[in-house]
């Protein structure tokens, strides 16, 4: 905890960057519990299309969300090379299916550029900033906005 506090005070952030299709995204490393390989999920009836199902994470039932579909991009077709980022979102733990984890970034707040004005509501909803690193563009997303506490995920 004190470590995190120190980081914040210096304006340092650690982020995990991952790839979906040809785009890169990143989330705060503090919300990531673990990263694991793809295993076949048990589908849930009447689930929204981006919920692939549930898997067994050491005795806990973990819902798997296709992040690509959740972000409004095309549905992923999970392969053995896909990975699941197990992330803590508010009180829940969610598995995020992504193509690959690419990087761990340590940045300061100066590196974060504001999200440009775009017409799409969806991007505005989750994007919290844009990073330019080695000529790559990485979009920082806010998991709390993607999976709000109150709203049921079916909505």
């Amino acid at each position: 905890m004190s470590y995190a506090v120190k980081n914040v005070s210096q304006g340092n952030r650690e982020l995990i960057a991952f790839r979906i299709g040809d785009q890169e995204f990143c989330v705060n490393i503090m919300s990531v519990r673990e990263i694991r390989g793809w295993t076949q999920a048990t589908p849930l009836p009447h689930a929204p299309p981006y919920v692939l199902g549930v898997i067994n994470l050491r005795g806990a039932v973990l819902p798997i969300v296709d992040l690509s579909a959740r972000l409004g991009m095309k549905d992923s077709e999970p392969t053995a090379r896909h990975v699941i980022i197990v992330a803590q979102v508010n009180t829940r733990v969610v598995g995020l299916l992504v193509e690959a984890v690419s990087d761990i970034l340590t940045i300061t707040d100066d590196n974060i550029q504001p999200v440009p004005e775009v017409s799409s509501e969806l991007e505005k909803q989750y994007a919290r900033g844009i990073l330019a690193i080695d000529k790559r563009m990485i979009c920082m997303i806010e998991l709390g906005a993607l999976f709000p506490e109150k709203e049921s995920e079916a909505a």
Partner: protein
Amino acid sequence: MDMNEIKEIFFQECEEQLAELESGLLKLNDGDRDPETVNAVFRAVHSIKGGAGAFGLDDLVAFAHVFETTLDCVRSNRLEPTQDVLKVMLKSADVLADLTNAARDGGCVDEARSRGLVKELEALANGEALVASAEAPKPTPKAAEPVQAAPAPTDESGFQPIPFSFDSFGDDEVAAEYGDTYEISFRPRRELFSKGNEAALLLRDLSRIGEVSINCDLDALPALESMDPEESYFSWKISLKTVKTEDDIRAVFEFAEWDCDLEVKAVEAASQAEELPMVPVPFDLSALDDVPAPAEESEPARAAAESGTAGEDAKMAAAAARVEKKESAAAAAAQTTAAAAAAAAQTTAAAAAAGQTIRVDLDRVDRLINLVGELVINQAMLSQSVIENDTTGTSSINMGLEELQQLTREIQDSVMAIRAQPVKPVFQRMSRIVREVADMVGKSIRLVTEGENTEVDKTVIDKLAEPLTHMIRNAVDHGIETPEKREAAGKDPEGTIKLTAKHRSGRILIELVDDGAGINRERVKQKAIDNDLIAPDANLTDEEIDNLIFAPGFSTADKISDISGRGVGMDVVKRSIQALGGRISISSRPGQGSTFTMSLPLTLAVLDGMVVTVAGQTLVVPLTAIVETLQPEASAIHSFGANQRLISIRNSFCPLVDVGRILNFRSAHANPMEGVALLVESEGGGQRALMVDAIQGQRQVVIKSLEANYTHVPGIAAATILGDGRVALILDVDAVVAASRGHSLKPEMSLAATG
């Protein structure tokens, strides 16, 4: 252990005592006249008072004292426990519970109510006491004076000293006409108490060797401010009629004689009664025997005796309380003696306790349960991989595994049993609500409970109380008619509400049945139309109308009362039941009453399930729901209407339900001949044949919550982890059956949309 922990133990015990008190009173109410029941009731109040005294909870002590006094009248057969008397007592039990809660959580209590009850209780006790003394040949002096002399802690809360009848003591003098009379003067010094001796015990021993008449001298008792709680202020004058010699009497004080001033002299029998200059404070020594004390004692002495009954905890409490020195004078004076008394009474208390219990932190149990759950899954995985790698099935590994399986199962059963609790405490709370609300609305209602020993997980019990309270209030307020209306309708003027609990399909089923007027469908419909819940021309079945009462913002009560009917009625109940993963439904017959049925999961429990395949997915169907399984033949399948199919089973027709389609796993109907039909009994009572593709086997599975990380899935009760490590879903049979009746599986369909 610090003071707060001790206090917490006291409050926990209070809860138990209050439950005991209530169930005892209810038994009496049902006509039980067993003296043991009366004693149990008395003991409960007595123990609460004792502990409360040690903690200086004056309001509680004051009320318990009055209550106890009245109960003692019942115990000594001076007051007949009629229905009216018991009504007051049940109310008093409620107030006592309120006071206990207030003392714990710092809330406040309806003072007017408790004061009113104190008056009623006093009236009961007094009324009988006066009659009793009128019958007695020589009326004995009233003890009002000495009781007042002992500092009564809370006069402002309505506590008034009560005049007692002393008939029983008068009897002593008449009866004891044998042996010599000795006059003993006994003044304990401070050292006597600091050495752990107890004056009351000495007096009791004295009483065992002959007939005693004991008088306590309170003259030395200083004002409250100047009192030293550890000092000894009392002295006793005892006249003893006994056949024993003076030496025998001195032997009683053998271990205390250096710490007290003791005088023993023989006197003439005739003169002793008039010689006492002090106001006599009779002291009932039976308090120190196995039976708890009746009310005729001086305040400090009785507090001491009580601590004895309260047992070991009171001893600790008293010891701790001594350090605090915050007590009222009465309690403080008691402290010095309490520890010793408690020690002596420990054996008695231990003998009285039925079955030994320990208190364990819930977190520890939870952790254990989780670990055992993991163990079960792991064991299943292990045996599966052994089976896959060993085809002979006779190896020693297999035998060991079987044993392991049995052991795991046993461990799991025992661990689950730790958390399972009977629903009794919740049901008991309901009887109070029925009483209070019925009183408020002027109805006469009887609550009958059944299956209160049905066990369910603690977490469910904790969350059950709120919705149940709401429903009980509703039943009393809206369900049951007024006595006049009931009589006009040819019913018993006393309404009955029946609350039952039972296990059904791996869930707990709680039913609330009232014999009231039932749902007034016309009014409900009109109300729903007025409130824009349904369209005016909506064509609804009776069942749909009944279920309108669960719609948000619905209330049928003509006048808004403070009991129910603020428009936050049944929809709140429904939501809280659903939050528990449960369901609620209503059925009603006009003029005969309504039945609310709640079905709740036994969370964390394991269940025996049938593992089946549906559209390539593995599902678990709770075994308890399955009546039988059968392989349908083409000749048994009958089409019914456009989409429905029925299966004939021994000449009765039963709708076929395609599980795969209802769960949206496939869009087309499966061919019934290729699958297996599971005949299930649903909550509604009807049978349905669930179509699945194949049966894999039976297995005990650990229920894993889907809600923890996801959300409730309609048609699915929970998830589990199978031997191969994959998650399988547990079918919610009732929801699937309901869906097959045309109710959508989509959660929370807005009623406005259907209208």
